[in-house]
């Protein structure tokens, strides 16, 4: 289990993340979402024990990860900016990693190389960006890590390879019961993969939720009334993200939306429609007011 306790990381005067706490269980996948520069990579590097936090601590199975070589040997971090030895092939890199990771399996390595259709003898710097990412993941899973950290690892992959990589990671997690943290700015990518998703915004954790529970806990309503209504008319219904376009009104209801539907029907609407919210909409609703005003920028 990974546990972050009030982690703060600064670079000089700049605070990258502040007072961050969350847990990642064994055999689960944790998603980190946030805008570019939100601090996702900083979090991953701190969990990997690359950075020493300026405040708080990161515990892996109860041990402070920065000081524990034993725990670090169970972690594999796939960075966004990949690094390979100059002129090395994947096989060279496999030999390199096998020196550091005692559980490195050349058998797994060969199987994965075949699945991804990579050439283990070819120079890695002749590979495309997407192939390099696949190569790094192959190396990573071959080290048999208990913790796999993926930084934007699905970026730049073609749809079929993305799917393959997705399935490999899911299979690996289920089989080895490892913890996975995956960062992304693409929520669609994370739906179906993650058990929990956290949103980092303004250096802090804005939201940390169980994916299944959260999608079941909110609904979006679209209602139309004969006469024009204002937001004040819906005061009895606890709602967010009120939007009005002529007579068409939309808003998000959190919690008891059956009750909300009941109340709405009592108001004799012409139309009531209820939609489940996509993860993207949930996060946007949560960051209400913080999203850009495009009219202001381009107007």
């Amino acid at each position, binding site marked *: 289990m990974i546990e972050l306790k009030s982690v703060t990381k600064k670079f000089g005067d700049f605070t990258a993340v502040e007072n961050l706490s969350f847990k990642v269980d064994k055999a689960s996948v944790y998603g980190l979402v946030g805008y570019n520069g939100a601090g996702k990579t900083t979090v991953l590097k701190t969990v990997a024990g690359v950075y020493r936090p300026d405040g708080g601590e990161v515990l892996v199975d109860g041990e402070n990860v920065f000081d524990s070589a034993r725990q670090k040997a169970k972690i594999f971090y796939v960075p966004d900016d990949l690094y390979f030895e100059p002129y090395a092939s994947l096989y060279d890199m496999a030999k390199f990693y096998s020196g550091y990771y005692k559980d490195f399996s050349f058998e797994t390595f060969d199987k994965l190389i075949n699945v991804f259709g990579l050439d283990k003898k070819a120079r890695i710097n002749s590979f495309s960006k997407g192939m390099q990412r696949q190569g790094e993941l192959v190396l990573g899973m071959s080290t048999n890590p208990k913790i796999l950290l993926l930084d934007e690892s699905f970026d730049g992959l073609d749809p079929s390879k993305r799917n393959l990589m997705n399935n490999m990671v899911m299979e690996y997690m289920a089989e080895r019961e490892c913890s996975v943290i995956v960062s992304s700015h693409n929520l669609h990518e994370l739906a179906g993969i993650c*058990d929990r998703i956290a949103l980092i915004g303004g250096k802090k954790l804005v939201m940390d939720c169980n994916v299944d529970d959260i999608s079941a806990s909110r609904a979006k309503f679209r209602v139309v009334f004969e006469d024009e209504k204002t937001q004040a008319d819906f005061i009895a219904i606890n709602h967010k993200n009120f939007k009005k376009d002529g007579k068409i009104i939309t808003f998000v209801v959190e919690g008891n939306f059956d009750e909300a539907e009941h109340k709405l029907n009592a108001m004799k609407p012409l139309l009531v429609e209820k939609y489940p919210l996509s993860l993207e909409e949930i996060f946007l609703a949560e960051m209400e007011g913080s999203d850009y005003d495009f009219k202001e920028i381009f107007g």
Partner: protein
Amino acid sequence: MIIIDKRSRVPVYEQIKNELMTLIRLGTLSPHEKLPSIRSIASETGINVNTVKKAFSELETAGVIYSVSGTGCFVNDDALANDGLKQVVYRDITDAVKSAISRGIQKEEIIELVNQLYKGESGND
């Protein structure tokens, strides 16, 4: 066997539940038949195994399926008579009828449609 739409607004575990319930309703999975394993559904769909587990445990709580430890999950005897399953169907129908009403479809038209569908079914028997 199971198709998941990751871009859908419906939560993934709900989609899995719905898919399994459809298979039960269609009789593709009959009472006491073994369901595909959680792991096999997870690897077939590329979905997190914990999400599939959640769908299974909700179906079990609803009495649609039962689990035998170490063996797997099976369709319940009275899965079709099950309230949970019925409720889902009722909810689907209610939503469909509501949407028909708001689009100005008359009650008679819906009744006519229902009659036709049921006639079609008895014709196939």
